[in-house]
């Protein structure tokens, strides 16, 4: 087993157990031993998170473990990786991009949206989750404030679909439609609905959402 392989095996155990101390310390030690932050990210963090995502898809682990793993990695990123990247002035961000997620106005269904958020996180995106029942104007305002790369919206109720169109119309009205690729999902949506709502694309599942977000940002 290569050094990275055994490290990754331990890393995945630590993040699933939420052992922040152990995960942070492994990252620190690796960097002290000469690995670059990018190497640690690519050889340890990224494969571990992908594995976590796959385990959730087969329900070998449940949602709380996936949340714990994502939170632990966030800690490693903020305490070790990001400062190291800043120091080395590589200027290269580990993040694939920043995605705003919201369940639209009127709709309280959030399980699917939360799963998408986690899968995005474990695949290297930053996620700004606005929660449920979010009015269109708030979605647009927060997208501007947070300077996100993608706007993602979820709806399970057909009565809430019009609010997705509102978001695209608002963006259009403000002359900033091209700045934000829009992806939609949730059981009330399908690809034709995405077109009707004026969105760029549709994700039928959390995994597809991740692929589509990568595509939207030209990272695939």
């Amino acid at each position, binding site marked *: 087993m290569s050094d990275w392989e055994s490290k990754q095996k331990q890393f995945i155990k630590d993040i699933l157990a939420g052992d922040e101390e152990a995960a942070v310390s492994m990252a620190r030690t690796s960097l002290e031993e000469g690995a670059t932050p990018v190497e640690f990210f690519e050889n340890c963090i990224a494969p571990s998170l992908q594995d976590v995502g796959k385990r959730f898809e087969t329900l070998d682990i*449940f949602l*709380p473990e996936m949340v714990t793993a994502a939170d632990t990695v966030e800690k490693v990123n903020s305490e070790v990786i990001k400062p190291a990247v800043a120091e080395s002035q590589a200027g290269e961000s580990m993040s694939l991009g920043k995605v705003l997620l919201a369940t639209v106005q009127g709709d*309280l269904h959030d399980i699917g949206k939360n799963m998408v958020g986690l899968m995005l996180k474990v695949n290297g995106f930053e996620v700004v989750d606005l929660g449920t029942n979010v009015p269109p104007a708030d979605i647009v305002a927060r997208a501007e404030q947070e300077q996100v790369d993608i706007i993602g919206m979820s709806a399970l*109720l057909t009565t809430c*679909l*019009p609010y997705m169109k509102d978001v695209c119309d608002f963006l259009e009205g403000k002359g900033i439609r091209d700045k934000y690729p829009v992806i939609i999902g949730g059981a*009330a949506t399908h690809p034709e609905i995405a077109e009707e709502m004026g969105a760029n694309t549709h994700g039928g599942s959390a995994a597809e959402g991740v692929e589509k977000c990568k595509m939207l940002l030209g990272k695939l």
Partner: protein
Amino acid sequence: MTDPTDYEILLNTLDKAENGPIIDEKEWDHQYISQTVQELVQKYDISWATDDPMVPWDDDFADRVYAAGLEMALRTGVYCLDTKRQMLWKRGELEHILKRTPRQVTVGAGEDAVTVYSRKPDDSTRVAIFGGPWGVPVTEELYGPFIESYAQEPVFDLVENATLLSTHGRQIRAASPWEAVAGWQEAQMALEAIERAGRPDIAVGCVEISTTEVGELAGSTYGGYRPTDIHHAALISEQKTAYHQLIKSVHFAHTQSFSETYFNPMYGGYVGGGPGVAIAIVSGMLLVKASLGGTFCNTGPTHVHLDCSTHPDLIVATGLAFQGLARNTDLLVSPFVRPTAGPGTKEIFYESAALTIATVVSGASLIDCVQSATGNNTLYSSPLEARFCGELSHSVEGMTRKEADPIVKKLVNKYKSIQGERLIGKPFTEVYDLESLQPTPDWLDLYESVCEEFDQEFGLSVN
């Protein structure tokens, strides 16, 4: 006005949403829900293996599940999304609420009135059948005939609605005047449909289009749905509520309407796997009663990837939780039969039957059937699968859990390996004749062949 004691309970509940401790939602999901469930699974030793009974008949096991659920309800309570506060009930308060639940209730009116009874495991008491397309989206033009096709089925004691896709040709927009227009139109079309079916006073599940309180308030004002109908409000997974659900419960109390309140814990979500779901169902049924009232309390635990309530683990979890509830309370509980398969497939019968049998013998009072093809696909639902569930329910009244177990196991084996394929089948328009509102010969043949199979294989006479 309702009797003062009930009204006091309602006001006390509303107080809790304003005065409880403030909690962050993420902390709620992780510490309050996930960690508590995990701890209770260990403490009460709730587990089963794949070859264990799918319909357990061990009373002690059922009571442990109940005790764990009760502890969960008392320790965690409900989280109000609008006020970010935890609503807590003391043991005495919860016991008082449970003591006040009637052991039987008559809903509907006149010749269409039906009595729903509290049942125990292995009970021969009649189970009531709540048939309908359960929120399946449907076009405006087909709404009336669709509901009529269900209402005409004699086996249904109550009839549920579908989700209207537009109103007067306009898009329905939640929490807007259009939700009010749609709520009213739904009531009008549903009441006309039951009239045409010759069952004008049957209790109707409503207001389906009520995304927020707007649809409920509009659809059940004068001339709309009646207090003898069954009004819905939900506890949001996991153990959360919101002002618009609480507003509905105030309205039910003031109009003295019957209601079926419900809670769908997520399998694979914050409550974890089967054992966690079993505890969450007990806790959720106690809390949905405490927070929203509810003549009937319903649960449709949901698989996070398959969206169904018929995954093998969910059959065990729901049966066990119902046994615990039936042995320790008089709550009138119902399962939500939500298969992955849809009309025109054999699998829809197997999936629906497994959950139906497991819950009838475990003490369900009412069977909510069938949210076909998981309820998400426009027009993918037909009365025939619900008729099957209704008839099957009556044929297993009085069957013991021990007798039911091998049947349920065989049924689960018939579908478990292909659930992931989501055989959604065919829409209503392809399995029913729209003139006669009767199943097409092919669909009827398939139904009859499955009835025959049940007779041959299990000795159950379904039709």
